[in-house]
């Protein structure tokens, strides 16, 4: 004699199964989101570390005049090129044991990518970037562009700020006071020495000027 499930048993079974499936669905969705967030975060870290690492290395042994390599440090708000003294490894268009090499970092608003050029090789950084801003601290304050060929020597340092594109292609202009996702100041070795308090004062003056403009 066979006995089927009662209605109550069937309902309890369906309820348990639904709850279980719902929990699995939520867990799977969260897992996917977390994984995507982690992957994006990881990609951003790798991106920014390669950009910052390249600039940091270049600033450590930058030269004002690179002869055929061009001016030492030249750049604007979205790109910077630094000629530095290092050991050529025979790749990226450099001859082995050559002394001077150039590192260029630039942001392309069209593709929303940062490109990193070392010697003859060009790498496009994977993480989408909403904006990259570069500014240069000279002895008389911050500048949006710098060119050693104009007799400016070295800047005290270079600040690079990056805002990642996390909303898949937001076209809105970035607010002026938007806090960057990553920002670092690179001191140029052997550059004019500026008192940290003076840098702070320069920053305050710049902020005050911004406030007045608003």
């Amino acid at each position: 004699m066979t006995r089927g499930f009662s209605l109550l048993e069937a309902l309890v079974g369906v309820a348990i199964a639904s709850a279980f499936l719902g929990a699995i669905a939520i867990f799977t969705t969260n897992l996917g989101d977390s994984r995507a967030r982690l992957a994006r975060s990881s990609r951003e870290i790798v991106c920014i570390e390669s950009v910052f690492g390249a600039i940091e290395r270049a600033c450590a042994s930058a030269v004002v005049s690179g002869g055929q390599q061009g001016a030492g440090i030249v750049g604007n708000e979205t790109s910077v090129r630094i000629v530095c003294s290092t050991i050529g490894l025979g790749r990226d268009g450099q001859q082995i044991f050559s002394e001077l090499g150039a590192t260029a970092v630039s942001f392309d608003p069209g593709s929303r990518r940062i490109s990193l050029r070392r010697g003859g090789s060009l790498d496009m950084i994977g993480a989408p970037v909403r904006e990259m801003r570069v500014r240069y601290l000279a002895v008389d304050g911050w500048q949006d562009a710098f060119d050693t060929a104009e007799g400016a020597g070295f800047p005290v340092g270079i600040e690079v700020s990056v805002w990642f594109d996390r909303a898949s292609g937001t076209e809105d202009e970035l607010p002026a006071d938007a806090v960057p996702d990553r920002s670092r100041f690179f001191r140029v070795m052997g550059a004019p020495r500026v008192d940290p308090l003076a840098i702070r004062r320069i920053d305050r003056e710049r902020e005050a000027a911004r406030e007045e403009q608003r």
Partner: protein
Amino acid sequence: MRRGFVLIAVLIVIAAAILVATGAIFAARGAVLGSRAADFDRRLRDAALDGVALAADAIAAQRVAVLAGATPEVDAELLRIADGARQFEVRLVPLANGELVQSEAGKLDVNEAAPSVLAKPVESASEVARQLIEAMSARRPNSSVDASIALVPVARSLDALREVLGPMRALGEERDEAEDGAARARGAEFPPLVSLYTTLGAEPLVDNAGNPRLDLVAAFRDDSSGGPATASLERFEDVEREALQALVKESKDPLDDAAIVRALLGRGVALPRIDELVASSTLEEGTHGAPRIDIVRADARVLAALDGIGPDIAARIADLRETLDEKERLGTSWLVSRLILTPEQYGAVAGRLTHRSALWRFRVESRVVQGEDGESGAPADEPRGVCAFDCVVDISPESHRLAFLRDVSMLRSARVIAADAVARSAEDQSELPKTADSSDAEATDDGPPTERVILPRSEPRAIDSPPQDATMPGVPVRPTRGRVSATGRDIGGAGQP
């Protein structure tokens, strides 16, 4: 049967889960090691750059003494940074001459000296060394002597590296191992080219106290118009002033500072006073003048290459310079008082000689060392490495500057790559007959050095023996009163017109 099947299925699922988990753990571990290596690299570089700044500060702190002719004294150990279980050690490493710092004024300037002068020190060196000097002579302006390695084909790059950097091509533990042997061989081996040549030879026009030298041409011109420089001429005695005024006003061609010596010698001014006046005044314009050779520290080969000196006089200078007293070290006139040169010979070469150096080369190396507790500084899975910078500091300005700074941390990697390229090149050409100087990858870089001949040096003579005749045919005259700029990484010297 069914129970066994279920058991096997469960085991397979568990095994798969373990595999996935293991893979994830290894991937995470790889990511951690990668980021740790990047972090380690950055800390190592930061430590080395701190060391560069410290060493430059230490040399600059002795500015007045060094500009008066002293050699800067620095400790080899610059920094020890504890970092958890490990320690970063930052130190100055000995250069090819065995010292921690090396005078740049004791070298020939490859951008300024005549090609014939540049060729003399390497006459007895290897063919590669001679070719490098020829290449640099033909390819002016050179950014640095170190950069000349890239001027030869890859197949000979390891030979060129050995000739240019000598024992300084090794870093870290490799250098430690080579150091004992290098110390034994030092003196017998031909010095590397970076010890004989420079691109930073321009003489800073500052006096022994670090103040700008008096520009005699401008001062006497100003004097006639009653300008403010008149006061600065009061430092001269009447006879000195008359001699220098005549020199400046009667000479139509621009002269080098040897003319000051000749003018003062002609009026019978005492040698110590001539040293004092030459150190504090100049006929050249600007902040830097024509390169001068530091006779106290230059290699005898460099001195011998100068017109008007020659090998015998160079050998006598090298023998006697260790015996100088403090007053003699304040100038170069001891060449006359010690009867090495006649006054006439001295008057001909004095504009190309100096008694001091304002630019000093050093190498800073940072690496992980054993902790004070004796345990290894770097655990087995920790990244190891060394970061090194070659640097030249110029202390002639009141705020010193780094005239040369090169990250040489990748030297070892570059050598491995070059050795591989040389080996491949040798394989490609294996069917061709080998030339006498063909390169062998490993043997060339690490094997015994090529046979070299030391420059002949005469036996030291008694100081009362008569000086030899000058080999220089005439008195050098600088063609124009040009303004010489400082050279180096931070003022746009290299490659500038």
